[in-house]
């Protein structure tokens, strides 16, 4: 069965420091991975997806199939990055279905 694990419930870093939000997945095939974000009082929304190889708001994520990880990184944190981040997984056999991790709350200290 597919599973997404985010080991950190809370991550607190200073403004300007690097950020890395960890995500590990369990799936025997080739997954597609996403990061969704929920800012305070806003809706859950897509931040980035692996298939697009994009950088959004300075965030990047690299799929490491050997380590089954898809960590989210940003070199210099900004206060507006404070939010709840969810790693999510989809599969080629069920492309419309997403399985979410439990989320990590990122808090940026001034």
């Amino acid at each position, binding site marked *: 069965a597919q599973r*997404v694990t985010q080991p950190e*419930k809370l991550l607190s870093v200073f403004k300007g420091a690097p950020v890395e939000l960890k995500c590990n997945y369990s799936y025997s095939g080739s997954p*597609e991975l996403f990061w969704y974000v929920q800012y305070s009082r806003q*809706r*859950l*929304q*897509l931040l980035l*997806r692996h*298939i697009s190889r994009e950088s959004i708001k300075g965030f990047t994520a690299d799929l490491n199939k050997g380590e089954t990880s898809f960590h989210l990184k940003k070199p210099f944190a900004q206060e507006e990055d404070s939010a709840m981040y*969810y790693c*999510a997984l*989809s599969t*080629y056999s069920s*492309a*419309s*279905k*997403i*399985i*979410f*991790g*439990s*989320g990590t709350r990122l808090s940026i200290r001034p």
Partner: protein
Amino acid sequence: EAGVAQSPRYKIIEKRQSVAFWCNPISGHATLYWYQQILGQGPKLLIQFQNNGVVDDSQLPKDRFSAERLKGVDSTLKIQPAKLEDSAVYLCASSSPPGLAFYEQYFGPGTRLTVT
């Protein structure tokens, strides 16, 4: 474009009562999802519709939960009777028409249910 609409935003009921939630997806989105998000957890899929047909309801507690999307547009999710453990945020999402891989899902604001 208008986003996914949900109502009510908040609901407080006593256990054993019934409750219904409503969702209107983004116009043209054929796929509609209902999720349950318990505090401290990620969203868990309850049911997925493709137009007015059910694609996946494997995690829907069918003894008390029901959902319908009769005309392939808006949808209702009902709980009857409610239990304390049903306290959660219920999220509705919709996604692009079929034919696109790895659909991006667009979420509504959610309904926060408290069962006392």
